[in-house]
């Protein structure tokens, strides 16, 4: 919170402060973003948390794989095996090419675990890490901004969905050949006739763009809305000392916080699962010849 003026920030200021990313440019200087799209800076907090969580997820799975026994599995191994099998089964249903599945199933598993971990940062109290950062950050020479949910950042989710697009393009070329894919691009939805080539090409481009943007926006929208609702609930608790009906607000804060956290457990898992499924479905589409 930016409460250097003696009194606390207003509700709007609190939310705006919490929606501000810790931004750095490529010389690692503190900067602020002024336009909607700015490629000269990056969100340091999202980068930090996503890399740390990705490392944690890989480490956990690696530990499970290293300690795996063919005898009676422990609880941890059984849980990981269940998850791996679930992803493998979903991949089998969508991608019928066993050679491609060797790469795509682990990819889908990584995507699932990583996005689940990043979404799960929402489960931490909204002010927990920002409050630590409020005292630690400025002492280290950083700005006093911190957002802990990497998937509530459009840069992260669109980065992920663009990577999926690149993999789709790779498999399009690998399976159909460059010529075959080019032919599909101009002949696919309406048929192989020179008069409809431009319309076909336009349709294909719209399809690729819409797929990629909606893929990223879906995850971002869900996480961003969830984070904002958590902030509103936190505000409700924050206002309890300021009014006569403070007790009511405290109860509301506890009830709403519990209910939304429980509902959010469903949302974070579901969104990670949907992102993984769509990754599989889009790469599966790259394997289908028209």
């Amino acid at each position, binding site marked *: 919170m930016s409460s250097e003026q003696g009194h606390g920030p207003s509700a*709007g200021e609190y939310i705006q402060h919490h929606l501000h990313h810790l931004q750095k440019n490529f010389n690692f200087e503190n900067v602020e973003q002024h336009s909607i799209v700015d490629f000269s800076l990056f969100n340091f907090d999202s980068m930090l948390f996503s890399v740390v969580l990705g490392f944690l997820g890989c480490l956990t799975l690696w530990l499970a794989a290293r300690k795996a026994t063919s005898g009676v599995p422990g609880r941890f191994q059984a849980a990981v095996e269940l998850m791996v099998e679930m992803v493998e089964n979903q991949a089998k249903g969508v991608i019928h090419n066993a050679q491609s599945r060797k790469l795509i199933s682990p990819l889908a598993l990584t995507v699932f675990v990583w996005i689940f971990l990043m979404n799960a940062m929402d489960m931490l109290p909204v002010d927990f890490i920002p409050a630590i950062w409020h005292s630690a950050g400025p002492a280290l020479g950083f700005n006093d901004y911190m957002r802990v949910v990497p998937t509530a950042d459009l840069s992260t989710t669109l980065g992920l969905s663009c990577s999926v697009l690149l993999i789709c393009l790779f498999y399009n070329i690998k399976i159909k050949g460059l010529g075959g894919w080019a032919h599909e691009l101009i002949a696919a939805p309406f048929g192989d006739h020179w008069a409809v080539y431009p319309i076909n090409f336009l349709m294909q481009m719209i399809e690729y763009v819409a797929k990629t943007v909606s893929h990223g*926006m*879906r995850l971002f929208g869900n996480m961003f*809305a*969830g984070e*904002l609702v958590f902030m509103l609930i936190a505000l409700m608790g924050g206002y309890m000392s300021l009014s006569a009906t403070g007790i009511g607000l405290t109860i509301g804060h506890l009830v709403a916080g519990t209910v939304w956290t429980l509902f959010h457990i469903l949302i974070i898992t*579901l969104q990670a699962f949907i992102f993984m499924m769509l990754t599989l479905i889009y790469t599966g589409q790259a394997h289908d010849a028209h």
Partner: protein
Amino acid sequence: MENILGLVALACGLIVGLGAIGASIGIGLMGGKFLESAARQPELANELQSKMFILAGLIDAAFLIGVAIALLFAFANPFVLK
């Protein structure tokens, strides 16, 4: 200025309300069909259930993106000059 604020407040209400109507109708239709088909062919229920969850997430997403945008307008409004 007050005019803009009022219109933005109205817009937030419309975004959330209309989005909720659409998402609710969609989820209701899909859930009803799922129960119908599960009653008709109980052996397919598990397979259909995972597909239903995917679709529920897809339907939900459009509404939740709307809620996020409405909340953003309510707290960090880009249309109001500071």
